[in-house]
Structures are given as C-alpha cells and as structure tokens.
C-alpha cells in the first residue's frame, strides 16, 4: 500500500508544476438564473464543462466568472446552467476577450430526466442516458424526515429494496437487501460508500441530517464497476456541501427536535387462571382442599372431571378470574415508560468563489421506551470543504467524527423473553427487605424478573467513528482529466459489562459473585482510487472512457478481557477480578484488495446508448489459487421517443434498456484458511483450508422500460434475473477427518425481481405542488444447485437449504387442516374442523363443539377417539379435540409451513406543499410473506398469551390447557406460529411550516426578517399507524430473509416537534 500512496503522491507532485501557467486577460461571463416565473435560483452552477470553468449564482440568481485568455481561441462552447430539480439550461457562446451576459430561465424538471447520477457509471451521467437502473433518492425525500440512520430513509421509497429494522432498540442497525438474495451463507448487505469512503463497519453511525442524496445500484447488471464486492449492490451516500448555497452566501441553521417515544402496543396477556378457587372467590384451594395463596406448591387445578382417565390438563380450562385476595398488575406500565427524545444540530455553511464549506454538529439522545434503560446517544461533527485550487485543479475533502453510547444489558433481544412469562399477579416492582427488586417475583415460575437486569446490570456500548475523504481532480484539457481519491474509515467500539457482587440470577451462576468484562475492537479501512477519464465527441457520437485503479485494505482488531468473581465490591476494574477466574481473547484480521477497470460510455445523438466495462479484481479473501477474477458489464439503451418516427408528444420520454453484468461476493476472512483452534492451553482441529475458494459469482440480466408522459408522470418497470453461482458455503466433512468442515463454493442461487415505480406530479403551481410516488416489487428466489448435503439453518433452524428449494421457505411441523392430509387408514368421519381451522378427532357423528356440555361440564374433552386401525388391526386412538401433526407421503413430519418472501411490496410517498406549508408522508406495505412468531410460541409454555384466556368464550369454544401444550410442541417450529406478515404502515408523517424571509418581515416591524433567513416549525410522527393482522407488537421483525419474531425490543411510536432557524 505504501508504494501505491507514494506513487499517487508523486503523480500529484509531478503534475502540479508542469501545469503551472499564468492567466492573462480573459472573458467575463455573467447573467441571472431564474425559474420560469422569474424567481431567482440561487446556487445554480453555471459552467463551461469542457474547461471546468464556472460559478454558482448568488441569492439573487446572479452569476459571474472569468474565462482566462489561455482558453480562448475564438471557439464556440456550451454554457450550461444546472440546478437540482430543473432542466439543464444550455447556451452557445464564443470565447474571446471581453464580456458576455447570458440569462437563463430554467424549466422545472419534475420528471428528473436531467438529474445526474454518479454511481456505477462512467463519470456523471444524466438519468435519461443511463442504460441500467441507478436509483437516486433525493435530498427532499431524506430531509423531510431525516432519520438517525439515513438507510432508514429508504424504507418504502425504492422498488426492489428491502429494509427491515428487526429491533426497536435505539441505535440498532438495519438489515438491507437490494433486489433478491445473492448469497445463501455470506449475507446480502450491499456495499455502502459515503463520499467515496467504503464503510468497513456499521452504517448506524452516519447522521441522516448530513445526507444530500443516496444512489442505489441494485445488482451486478449495474454494479459490475465495483467488482468482487458488489454482487449485492451498492448504496452510495453523498453528504451535503456548501456548494448548494448561493455564491457568497453564508448560512447558519439551528435545528432542535424534541418529542416523545411511546409504547403503543396492547397487552397480549391471559388475564385468567386455571386453579380451584374457594366458594367465596377469595382464595385459591390446594390439593388438600385448604384455602391458599398462589405460592402454594400444591395449588389444585380446576379439573372438571378428576375421575377422568386422561391428564387433568385435558379437562382444565383457563377461564377463571383471579380471586379477590390476589392483586394483578399492569406489566406494560411496570416495564415501559415514555422516553424524551431530543436532537440538536448546528450547521454552518458558506459558498465563496472557488471554495465552499459546510460544518455540522449534532447531538442526539434517544431513550427508547423501556424502564431503567437509558437508550442511545450520539454526538457527531462533519465538515466538507471544496476548493478550486486552480482552473484545472479542484480539491474536495471531508471529515466526520462520531461518538455514541448505548445502554444495552439485553442486546437486541431478550427482555421480552422473561416479560411474557410473567403472570398477571406478578409484581415486577416488588422489592426485598433491602429495597432491591426481586429476581423471582413469580413463585410459580422459574423465569427472571425482566426489570432486574434492566436496573442492576451495568452494560454500555461505546462507539467512535472517524471518516475522512480526499478527492483531487485535475482537468488539464477538455478531453482528459485525472482524479485521485482516498477514503479512510476507522471505527472503534468498546463495551463493558459489570455484575455487582451478589447479582442475582434464577439459577446459580458465576456472575452471582460479580463479574467485569471489557471488550474493545477497531476496524480501520482505507480505500484509494485513481481514475483517468477521456471525454470526446465525434460529431454526434459522445464517448466517455475511464481507466481506473482501486485499492482497499482493512484491518480488524478485537481484544476481550474479563472474568467472574470480584474481590472487592464496587470496583469496576479488571484487577478486581479473581485471578483464577480471568480470561482473555483476541482476534485480528486484515484484508487487501485491488481492482483495475476500464469502462466506456457511448451515446449517439443521446438516442442510442451503450456502455461497456471490464474489471480485473483481486482480493486476499480468496484462496491462494483464486486471487484474481474478471468481471464485466455490457449495456444498451434506446430512447425511442427521440426517433423522428415517434408519434406523440404526450409521451415525453420512452426508453428501452438492457444490461448484463457480473460481480462477486467475498468470503469471510477465515474461510480460506485451515485452522487449528487455540484456547485453554491446547489446540484442536477447526476448519480445513481451501486454497481454491473463489468469489460467489453473480450474473444479472436487467431489462427495463422508462417513460415520462404528459409532463407530469414518469413510469419505470424493470425485470431482473440474477444467478449467483459458486455460493460460499460451509461444507461438512466426515467425522474421521478431524476437521468438522471446510468453506467451499458449493451451490447456485437464482432470484428474479420485478420492480415498478410511478411518479405523479398532480399539482405543479407556484404556491402549491403535490407529488405522489408509488413503487412495487416482487421477488422470487430458488436454490438451483447445492453441492453439499441439505441443512437446517437460519433463525430457529426454521429454514431448510436444499437443491430446488424456494429460498425463504420455512419448515417445521404442521397441524392437519384438510381431510386429504389425514392418513389413509383414518376414518375421515371421525374428524371435524374446529374454529382454529385444525382438523381434530371428535368421533363419528360429533362436532368440534361437543367437548363440553352447555352447562360447562365435560362431555368429550379428555377422552380418546378411535379413528382407525393400524397395520396389526389394533385400534388407533387419538385425544379428543386435539390437533394432529401432518406426516407427508415420505413419512416425515418436517414439512413446509410458510414462506417469508412477500407476494409483493408497495410503497407510497406523498409530498404536498402550499406556500410555507409542507406535508410529507410515507406509507410502506407488504402483502403476503410469513412471520414466525416465536415470541408468542414461548408464551404457550406458561399459557400467557391472550389466546389461552377462555373466560368469556362460549362453552363450545373453550379449549383445555393441553390443547395449547400440544400446539406449543416443545417449542419446535410449527405452523401454529406462522402468521401472515401483511401490513400497511404509515411510516413517516412530517408537517412543516416554513416562514421565509419575506414572511418573517411581516412580523414585528420586520425585525425577524432582518435577523432570520427563515424559521420552520414542524411536527414529525414515525411509526404512527400499522394496519396488520399480525399478532405480535410489530410485523417489522427479524431480518429480510428470516422473518422471525423472537422477543426483541419492540418498535414504538415517536412524535416530535422541530424548530429550525436559518440565519
């Protein structure tokens, strides 16, 4: 790497003196830029592109710059005026000494056909000239409700993008996948780049307030440019700069957001019990017939027929109100509380001739909703500086520093596990004689009080993030430029956990003697790029060609130290750990990669468009025999609407495009190596090495149609099919090999995606506008080949990976719901479908309603039903009314029970503006797709879900305890807990009123107008309404590929007010 750096630095040093030249008398170009209605457009970039000369307009829309004499030979050039959201203005001028005045009146580009993208393309390219999909999420769609993590702003806004925030815990990251899955075993997170910095750690540290735009390249058909790491797509984030201000303008923005985080879920709780109560309804009764409290180990079940043959739980119903001596508690109130959210930001920006900068400082505190937990806090600073060092040399630098903390004794999951086991009579806030919360407040349960760790377990995560970027662009001629850029990303995390001496657990545990643990990790990544570009037009044929070298390296270091059994109470120091109980651990990894590519973009009359790319890429993560690989892309587009034969001007744009590209996915650091595990004074065989490990190789074909019509609508539909071969998978080895497995290229995964986006500009007036966006996605996936035995894996081992399997299907036990599913030797007439939809044995002539008599006494519950004869002629008896497991033709009860892949997803955005008022709304929906509700399943063990409450049900609807025990199924994955994940969610609602300078001047004699540039008042609501039949707290659980709800920190509602003052 050092040699690369020295070489690149040498290049800079060599080039600068060579290019030094003096400016002589030149041409002064000036003018004014306005919109169609004559309003000035401050911050418009007016340039002569081929010479990189130009300026941005000031607050009055006025621009002015000088063309040095050395550029002049009387030639004609094009002067362009560019302002985001407007069509580019173009004027021909002749370069000769003197002055020229050129005014521009720009027309609004509501359909964004002239909007430029930079991701995955050869130089920056207008959207209309793209032969593949690059989705740009503009500032407006981010800054109407800037999230703490900008990736969250993608939810519901982009077709083909799945974003799941699996936990509501403040500071949690998101799982994101672009289009269908690429990898089975190595994750599908896209490559994320921020201002040229390749992120080597979580995206959670980036502040959404800083983001100007995001560009998404969804698959290899577009992302081939990023080589062996881009099969899962790329998200390129661009942060705000001072260049968007008017020339000479300085802007200070003070933004304060304050509000509340509120639990909004209902208590899914069984409010009844199953025990005997004395005739007065005051006390329980034990097996001796004595009155007793809940703590009596001999508490008697209210068995409706104690002389019956079956188990008492087959005749006992949870339908009794707690006796009057038993107090019950509202656990939601005991466990949750509203949190006070605040976020303060100061931004200072300035745009001067030749340079601009933007400095932002932000402070965030998000406490969440859980009692005793302090939540998440973050402070961050970003500065971006652009400087035009000379006419042909410009420098952009940026730096970002972030520090955050998080109180996290439970991690992302955990708290609800114990919470849901707590019976209504359990007082979570009960204290012992020392005033300490009880660890076991429920005498009938072996579960811990969830409030106990929340209050007494000290656990904090600290994160630090430093990022820097540097970009030097040298443009000596109008057909050639060179660019050097570097990105640096350093992330360090620190976590400590402290158990006080005497820390209680339900089971004896070494932490009862106290414990102290610290771990520290840091990731440091550096990426450098050197690009030379050639831009040349041959009459109507425009060409852009890039030659590029890319280098990246990253290091990861992890150190852990800690131990159980503290010597002295209250001392949080490793030296306080009993020397015999200390342990340490460390990890270090390093990754290097280099890539070379050449790409060219051609367009003929902006009508026929083509693009070619070749990239040769190497990475240290591949086996030593497979370090380098070639990737490529070829794309074409035809703007049919530019043809002379195009028949209507109602359709402004009609483009057909197709692209085929390849990209790779890299294995993990350890995967290529043969490893012997070291630990505990010994070494043992780990994984067998694989020198032939190569990238998973994704090939994608993307075809699409783009159209714009009636000047108000744009529509785009894309079909993508992606085949990723050589999946990187763990392949087991025979036991006698000693090594348990190796990592090998051992399978293929195919996915296809249909995406459609519609943008409608319903109203476009000076004082009023209203735009609506809609997006649709449909994804299908299949494992087409597997060179290893099938395996059960993923969350809860609920997924079965085998050849020919639909990726995303859940497997487990299934309860019979159809007569055709009954074994052949069963008498079908002995069954009836109950109100849960299960086919249950009831005996010939009976119905599922016959379990109890109308007076509440037992009729059939607890009895056996003969349903047929076995092969030996013996009766087959089943428990009356109980669900039966389905066994398939092959004799297996491990069968398909669901599929997490939605039928389709739809997102809607609405942006309404009337004078200073703006209302922004995002609705996100998923239609179909299953969720496995493990949270609910666990409650079945203790009968805590509302389903178990039989009180108030009609006599024939009541089910005994055993019915739910069967469905619990020893916590095996089964169909009872597969739920439809369909939802419609009002994800964002933002209402703002902006008083601009003019409006402010109308108050208090214009004093406000003199002081402030603008003041905005706003109200934000997040997670306001969710329409779903899903029984859990929120259908947004798990991750994109494995939708399993396992008692995570629930999502909550957030309502805040914002005041933004611009000076």
């Amino acid at each position, binding site marked *: 790497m050092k040699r690369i750096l020295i070489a690149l630095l040498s290049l800079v040093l060599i080039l600068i003196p060579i290019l030094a030249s003096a400016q002589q008398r030149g041409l002064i170009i000036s003018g004014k830029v306005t919109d169609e209605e004559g309003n000035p457009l401050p911050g418009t970039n007016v340039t002569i592109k081929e010479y990189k000369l130009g300026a941005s307009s000031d607050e009055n829309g006025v621009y002015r710059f000088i063309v040095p004499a050395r550029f002049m030979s009387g030639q004609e050039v094009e002067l362009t005026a560019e302002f985001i959201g407007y069509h580019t203005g173009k004027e021909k001028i002749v370069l000769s000494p003197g002055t020229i005045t050129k005014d521009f009146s720009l027309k609004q580009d509501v359909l964004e056909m002239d909007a430029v993208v930079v991701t995955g393309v050869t130089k920056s390219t207008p959207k209309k000239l793209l032969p593949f999909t690059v989705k740009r999420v503009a500032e407006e769609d981010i800054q109407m409700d800037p999230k703490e993590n900008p990736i969250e702003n993608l939810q519901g806004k982009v077709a083909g993008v799945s974003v799941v925030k699996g936990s509501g815990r403040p500071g949690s990251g998101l799982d994101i996948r672009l289009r269908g899955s690429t990898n089975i075993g190595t994750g599908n997170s896209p490559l994320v780049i921020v201002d040229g910095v390749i992120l080597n750690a979580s995206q959670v540290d980036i502040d959404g307030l800083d983001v100007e735009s995001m560009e998404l390249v969804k698959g290899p058909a577009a992302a081939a440019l990023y080589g062996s790491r881009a099969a899962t797509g790329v998200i390129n984030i661009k942060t705000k700069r001072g260049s968007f201000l008017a020339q000479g303008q300085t802007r200070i923005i003070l933004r304060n957001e304050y509000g509340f985080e509120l639990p909004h879920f209902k208590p899914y709780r069984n409010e009844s019990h199953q025990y005997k109560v004395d005739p007065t309804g005051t006390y329980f009764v034990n097996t001796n017939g004595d009155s007793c409290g809940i703590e009596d180990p001999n508490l008697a079940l209210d068995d409706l027929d104690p002389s019956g043959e079956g188990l008492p739980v087959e005749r006992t119903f949870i339908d009794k109100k707690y006796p009057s001596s038993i107090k019950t508690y509202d656990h939601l109130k005991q466990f949750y509380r509203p949190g006070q959210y605040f976020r303060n930001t100061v931004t200072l920006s300035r745009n001067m001739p030749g340079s601009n900068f933007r400095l932002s400082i932000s402070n965030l505190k998000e406490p969440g909703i859980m009692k005793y937990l302090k939540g998440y806090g973050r402070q961050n600073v970003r500065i971006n500086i652009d400087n035009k060092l000379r006419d042909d040399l410009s420098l952009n630098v940026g730096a970002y520093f972030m520090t955050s903390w998080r109180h996290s004794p439970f991690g992302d999951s955990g708290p609800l596990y114990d919470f849901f086991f707590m019976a209504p009579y359990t007082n979570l806030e009960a204290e012992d004689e020392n005033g300490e919360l009880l660890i076991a407040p429920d005498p009938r349960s072996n579960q811990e009080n969830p409030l106990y760790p929340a209050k007494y377990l000290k656990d904090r995560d600290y994160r630090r993030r430093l990022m820097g970027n540097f970009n030097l662009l040298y443009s000596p001629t109008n057909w050639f430029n060179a660019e050097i850029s570097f990105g640096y990303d350093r992330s360090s995390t620190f976590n400590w956990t402290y158990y006080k001496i005497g820390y209680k657990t339900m089971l004896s545990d070494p932490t009862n003697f106290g414990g102290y643990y610290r771990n520290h990790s840091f990731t440091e990544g550096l990426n450098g790029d050197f690009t030379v570009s050639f831009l040349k037009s041959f009459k109507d044929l425009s060409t852009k060609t890039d030659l590029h070298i890319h280098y990246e390296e990253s290091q990861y270091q992890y150190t852990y130290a800690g131990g159980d059994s503290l010597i002295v109470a209250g001392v949080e120091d490793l030296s306080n750990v009993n020397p015999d109980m200390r342990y340490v651990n460390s990890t270090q990894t390093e990754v*290097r990669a280099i890539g070379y590519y050449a790409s060219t973009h051609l367009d003929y009359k902006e009508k026929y468009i083509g693009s070619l790319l070749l990239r040769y890429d190497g990475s240290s993560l591949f086996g030593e025999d497979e370090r380098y690989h070639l990737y490529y892309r070829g794309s074409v587009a035809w703007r049919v609407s530019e043809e002379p034969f195009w028949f209507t001007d109602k359709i402004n744009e009609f483009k057909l495009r197709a692209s085929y590209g390849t990209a790779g996915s890299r294995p993990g650091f350890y995967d290529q190596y043969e490893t012997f595990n070291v630990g505990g004074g010994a070494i043992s065989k780990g994984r067998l090495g694989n020198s032939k490990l190569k990238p998973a190789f994704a090939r994608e074909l993307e075809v699409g149609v783009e159209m714009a019509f009636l000047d108000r609508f744009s529509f785009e539909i894309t079909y993508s099919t992606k085949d990723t071969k050589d999946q990187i998978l763990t392949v087991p080895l025979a036991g006698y090999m000693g090594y348990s497995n190796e990592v090998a290229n051992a399978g293929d995964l195919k996915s296809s995606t249909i995406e459609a986006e519609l943008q409608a500009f319903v109203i476009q007036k000076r004082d009023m506008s209203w735009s609506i966006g809609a997006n649709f996605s449909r994804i299908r996936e299949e494992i087409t080949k597997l060179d290893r035995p099938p395996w059960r894996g993923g969350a809860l081992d609920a997924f079965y990976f085998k050849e020919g399997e639909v990726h995303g299907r859940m497997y487990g036990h299934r309860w019979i719901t159809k007569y055709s599913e009954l074994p052949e030797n069963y008498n079908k007439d002995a069954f009836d479908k109950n109100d849960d939809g299960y086919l249950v044995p009831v005996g010939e002539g009976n119905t599922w309603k016959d379990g109890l008599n109308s007076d509440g006494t037992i009729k059939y519950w607890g009895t056996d039903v003969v349903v047929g004869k076995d092969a030996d002629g013996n009766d087959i008896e089943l428990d009356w009314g109980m669900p039966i497991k389905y066994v398939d033709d092959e004799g297996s009860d491990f069968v398909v029970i669901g599929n997490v892949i939605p039928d389709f997803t739809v997102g809607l955005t609405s942006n309404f503006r009337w004078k200073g008022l703006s209302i922004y709304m995002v609705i996100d929906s998923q239609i179909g797709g299953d969720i496995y509700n493990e949270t609910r399943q666990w409650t079945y063990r203790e009968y805590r879900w509302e389903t178990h409450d039989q009180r108030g049900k009609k006599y024939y609807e009541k089910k005994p305890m055993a019915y739910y025990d069967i469905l619990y199924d*020893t916590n095996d994955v089964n169909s009872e807990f597969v739920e439809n994940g369909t939802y419609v969610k009002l994800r964002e609602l933002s209402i703002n009123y902006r008083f601009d300078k003019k409006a402010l001047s109308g108050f208090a004699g214009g004093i406000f107008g003199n002081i402030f540039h603008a003041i905005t008042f706003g109200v934000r609501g997040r997670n306001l309404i969710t329409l779903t039949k899903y029984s859990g707290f929120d259908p947004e659980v798990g991750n994109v590929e494995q939708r399993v709800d396992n008692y995570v920190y629930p999502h909550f509602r957030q309502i805040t007010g914002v005041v933004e003052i611009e000076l």
Partner: protein
Amino acid sequence: MKLSKLFTSCAALILIVVLISGCHIDLAIKNLNAPDRARALRNPGDVEKLLVSSFKSFYYALTTYDGAGMMLTTMADYGSSSWGNSGMRDMSSEPRVAWNNDPSYVYAYALKYFWDDMYGAISSANDMLISIKDGMKFYEVSSTGDTVYNTNRNKAWAKFMQGIAYGWLSLLIDKAFLVDEDTDLEGDIPASGYKEVLDFAIKKLNDCINICSANTFTIPDDWAPQSGGGHAVIDQDRLKRLCYSYIARFTAAVARNKTERDAVDWSSVKTNAEKGIQDDFGVYNDWQIWWVSWGLQWMIADQSWMKVDYRLIGPADTSGAYDAWLATDVQQRNVFDVLSYDRRVHPAGDPHADGKYFYYTPDVFFRISRGTYHFSRYNCKKTLNVHDTGTGWVTLLSTRELDLLKAEAELRLGNAQAAADLINKTRTTIGELPAATTANVGAVTDERKWNGSLWAMLKYEKGMETVAEAFGIPLTDRRGWQELPKGTPLQFPIPGAELELLMMDNYTFGGSGEYAAPKFNIRRTVLPPRQ
C-alpha cells in the same frame, strides 16, 4: 499550450502504466489468529497441545449441553426431564420412540456432537502418532538440566485416547469407521460393527498398557486435571490401571441386551477390573480451561432443568409410595416423597433434609401435559459445586463403579459373597444401610431395590454410585439388565448427517416392539459428487 496539455496527459498515462505494472500488491495475508496444519504440527510442543485437546474433546462429547450426556441420562431413567433440550424429553418419553436420525431433527445435534467429538479426540491422537511415526522427537529439559524424552509418554496417551474414544463409540453406535495413524483418509473406509470397534479399542488400550509397562513417565496434570480434585497425577502405572479399567467397563457395557451381557467374558472383566484404578478418574473443572457450561453435571443438580428419576431413587423408598407409583399407569404417575434408610437420600428422621447424594426440591416446573411421570422431587448433589461455581470435580470412572462391576462379575461367576462384600463397600459406609448378604442371590432380572435380592441390591447400588458420574453407563447397564422401558433404542445409528455426507442409507433404532429396530422413514438425499 496544447502541447503542454498533451505532454501532461501523456505523463499521466505513463504514470498509470507504471502504477499498474510496478505496484505489486501482495494479497497473501497470514492468518495470525489460528495456526494451520503446517504450523500446528511443526513443533513438538504444539503437537503435544493438540494431544491435550484430544482428551478435552472426549470429555465434552459426554458431558456438555450439546453432547449426548443429558439425553443418555434421561433415556436410562436416572435423570428425568420433559424439557425438549438436547433430546431429553423425546428420548425418555413413554411410550418410547425411535431415535429420529433425520439430519433435520431438531435435536440431531446431541448424537452428532458425540460422534464428531469422539472422532475429534481420535484425530488429534492420530496426529500425535503420525508425528512420532514420522520421526518427531518429544523431549524437554528438566530442572536439573537432564533431557527427558516424552515420546513414549505421548504415544501411550495417544493410544489411550484412541482406546477410550473407540470404546465409547462401540458402546453407543452400531458401527464406526476405524481410523488410526496408519489409515489413508483419502481411501475407502468401511464401517465396522460395534464388536469390531470394541476389539479395536481394546487393542489400542493394550498398546498403551504395553508402553506403560516398558517406560516411566507422568502425564502433565493439565492434560487431564486430577490434582485440583485431590486425586493422584497420572503416571505410567495409573495410566495402565486406567486402561484395564476401561477395558473392563467396555467389555461389559458393550452388550446391547441381556443375552449379550450374559455372554460377556466376565472372568476377563473381573481380571481387568482387579488391575484397574485405585483412585477415581475424572476432571477437575477450573471454569477457565476445563469447564462445562450447562453440561449434564450442571443440569442434574438444577431443579428447574432436570430431576432425579424415581426409577433411580424410588427403589430406596420404604413407604410404599414407589411401589404405588410403579403400579400406577405411566401417564398417571406423579410426585411422592421417598422415605428411606439410605443416607444418600436423606438423613435419619428428616425426609426433606439433604442426603449425601440427593436433596429435596419440591417445586416442579415441568409441563403436566408432557407427562407427570417425568415429575420428581429430588435432585442430585454430587455435582452441585460445579453447578454453583463452575469449578469442581467431575468423576468419569470411579473405583466404586469398578467395584460394582467386579461385584457383577463375581455374582455371574458364582462368587456371591465376594459380590456382597464389594457391594457393601459403599452400601454400608455411604448409604449406611444394612450389609447385603448372600441369603437371596436372585437373578439379573430382579427389580432393583435397596433390600431385595443380591442382584437387586447390586443394581440399586450401581445406580446410586454412578448417577451424575459415569455418563452413559446407566444406559448400558440397564439395557444389559433388561430394565429399560420397551422400545428404548438400545444403540444409535451413525448420525444421519454423516450418513448423508457419505451417501449411505439412513436408518435408526428403537421405538416399538421388543427392543426392535423398526422401519423409520427418512428422506434419502443423494449428494452430488464433490467438484
């Protein structure tokens, strides 16, 4: 001007070429975190450390949460649990079910872990023996400056590990692959039946005995920690005795049923047992290097996870409650208090106070619908210290077990008094029970009872002394004594995932009939050839 620009551009291009061709980026990065085979087997000291892991792997196979220990204990009805974890419930449910050998079975890991870890132990031992075959010398310089050669010590320990690992495979699995330092792993390795596997194990243990007889050495205490538990370090003599002990144990325990156990060469068992250990063998857990989180020894001490099964502790009862329990339909059985003269159960006069081995835990957290026959009010104290602190001694093979094995041999060889004497070594001292006599010798099929026939008392005593110690032996004892509930698998198949990998037909045992191996439907998956 234009020339200057052109020159500049050309210079830049030249630099690019230089950069591309001149900067060789080294993409070969060393994994600093873990050694590869070359590094791990290069230095004698490292190969020795690999051998240390061999015994660890063996220890974990039997005792950890993921291993087979918990399941084997509930199958044998020494421990009782209706929680599903690690197959505890499935394999002890009544009526008994077959072992589900489908790799997708949710608790398939319990058997697979046992299999893999036993082979992990064998593989590491093989590596040591291969290194010795290849001429690697193992020595150290003593504090007096003398060179001490350890090659024979290491060879002996490696043979011991091969022996006990294959021995355990022969006890529980119907077939195994015989792989040692002379095996070509790339070649075709057939599966051998359990009797062949036992012969192979005994051969390795005899190899170890021969080395021990010809050499003097001491096994480092950190290879199998003994001293922390107050036990003697392992020298060549103790290792030899361990080999004899294991040969005796395996010879008797390999029997799949009463017929096979009856046919065991009990003279050989007696002879080997007599040459066996004089001090318990086990592991001292220090919570750091040697520890078993959530292992069997932890679970059976923890009232919320596992109870002591009434089939073990019930025969100590004098109140008649156990007899009533036995007479009750299995599905109707429920908790009762044991009233006993055995001080291992409770002290005199206080049936709820802690006995020497067991303690009273009236709360039962198991689900009623999973069978109240799983319920019990007792837990085992033997490993309570390990449960509470993570540290402490865990016995793997005790002199008491060996004595009782000898007692069985004596009984079968017609030496009832000798058997009674051996039984009384613990019965009268620890249990504080009246001495067993030869008044009623009885038969192997007699129900275990604290005061029954000599056979009944032998079985009773063996249960008391091996629970929470001799992991897996309760199952092998009970199958050989024909005590297991009908349908209990008498052995396990090669794990389904292994069969699938090796493209062999899946099969299983247990579930119905008279200890039968019924048909079991498992989807056959054909593995494509490796590329």
